């Protein structure tokens, strides 16, 4: 069974997560410095999330594709995203084995991984706060 039953449910969790990343000066600072527009295209459920740091000033969390063309697009099952935020996915290996598809200069996005990893505990915390504690491994 898929971790998220609907796009709405996924948006609820992911938007909260990204809002907290945005509120963290170190993480949001790195994202803004990159000026990247990264789009995540999910399957099961079908949903698109865009993180637009293009202007270097305001990190926009967009439910959908947004107006600006994404620089990097990463596509995966929503369950893979869930595993990623739990810190259980080796992203380069997931790309190599086809679990994650990418378009654009992927290394630019991967360069942000060391910073983004700081959000792993936040994700687990959000799952607990939203009544999804069972999804957090003990």
């Amino acid at each position, binding site marked *: 069974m898929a971790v998220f039953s609907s796009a709405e449910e996924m948006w609820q969790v992911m938007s909260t997560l990204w809002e907290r990343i945005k509120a963290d000066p170190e993480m949001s600072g790195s994202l803004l410095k990159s000026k990247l527009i990264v789009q995540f295209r999910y399957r099961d459920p079908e949903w698109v999330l865009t993180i637009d740091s293009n202007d270097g000033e305001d990190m926009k969390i967009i439910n959908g594709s947004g107006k600006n063309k994404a620089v990097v*697009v990463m*596509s995966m099952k929503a369950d893979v995203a869930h595993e990623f935020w739990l810190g259980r996915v*080796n992203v*380069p*290996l997931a*790309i*190599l*084995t*086809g679990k*994650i*598809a*990418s*378009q*654009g*200069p*992927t*290394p*630019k996005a*991967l*360069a942000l991984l060391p910073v983004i990893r700081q959000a792993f505990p936040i994700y687990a915390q959000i799952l607990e706060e939203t009544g999804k504690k069972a999804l957090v491994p003990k």
Partner: protein
Amino acid sequence: MQPFAFHSPTKITFGEDAACGAYEVTRELGGKRTLIVTDANLLNAGVLASVLAAFENGNDSASNQPIIFDEVPPDSDLDCVRSAASLARRAGCDSVLAVGGGSVIDTAKVANICLAYGGDLLDYLGLNNLPTKLFPMVAIPTTAGTGSEVSPVALIRDRDEQRKLLFGSPFLAPDLAILDPKLIVSLPPSLTAATGLDALTHDLESYAALISVSPFSDALCLESMRLIFQFLERATKCADDMEARAATLVASTMAGVAFTNAGVGLIHALAHATGAKYGTHHGMTNAVFLPHGMEFNLESVAGRYGSAARFLGISNELDDDKAARELIKAVRSLVARCGLPTRLKDLGVPAISESELEGLACAASTDAAIIFNPREPSLTEIIGVYKRAY
């Protein structure tokens, strides 16, 4: 041991005159009319004679005779791919046979995308963006280096943007690779050496890709390196030494399977960026960058290089750092013995300004190959490796 996945979707057959079987296997795979992709030099030199004879003697009706596209340049580009695909589509081809080096095989792979799906091939750019299986494809390498005959990736040059475009998907891996050492005997010494160094670079980068290595890829890398160190110089200096030709051909394909599973690294990223900008030969560019890239990675993978050096009999040193340095020295020695250039300027790369250098380093830093490098390089460090190689 870390978790890993290993796959090798391409069936491999090997043997002198194995290429004669290309017609039969293409039909067994379901193809009725085949696009044969090659280059004019190979065609004119008669390298494809046995392959074409097999098609001529086959049971195809007049309307199903193969279509030959022989306009692939040494460093294939988007226009070439589109021409090949257009020709194949007009003829109603439903299978692809590539006979040539990496450029030919990559052209055939990406032409197969256009043929199978239609539309703009740039829609399929990137990694894992192909939705379904392509038409059956058979690859017969006429060089021993790229590993493209077994890899799920293809690099095509975008001349306008001066960059290499990467297409990667499990569906891109050919269904069958036919290794026929007779087809590589006409390869000139410089290309024999350069393509061999390309294969050695695949081995050394895959073996050092700490996040993605497995015992399977390790085994392939080590045996492939052993064959290259033992036979490449012989294959370079004596064109019709079939034992050496066969060994380097097999080594190259083994390295191809290895990097398919473990990835490459900084050396390839730099070679792609440099090749896209200056049109340098991929294998020769790798040969130039290889010792410098290894030196850069040394602090992260001395243990891996050291174990390879001991396996290859290059060093008896128990100290990894010392053994690793002996491996780098052995690579330099092999490059020299094979008569390859050792500096970028010897490849015709012009001296460039700091800002151009930064642009080139940026291109390398965003090349997908760099994802697997064991040590993350800064732009300044990439520039440093480039300058040392220059």
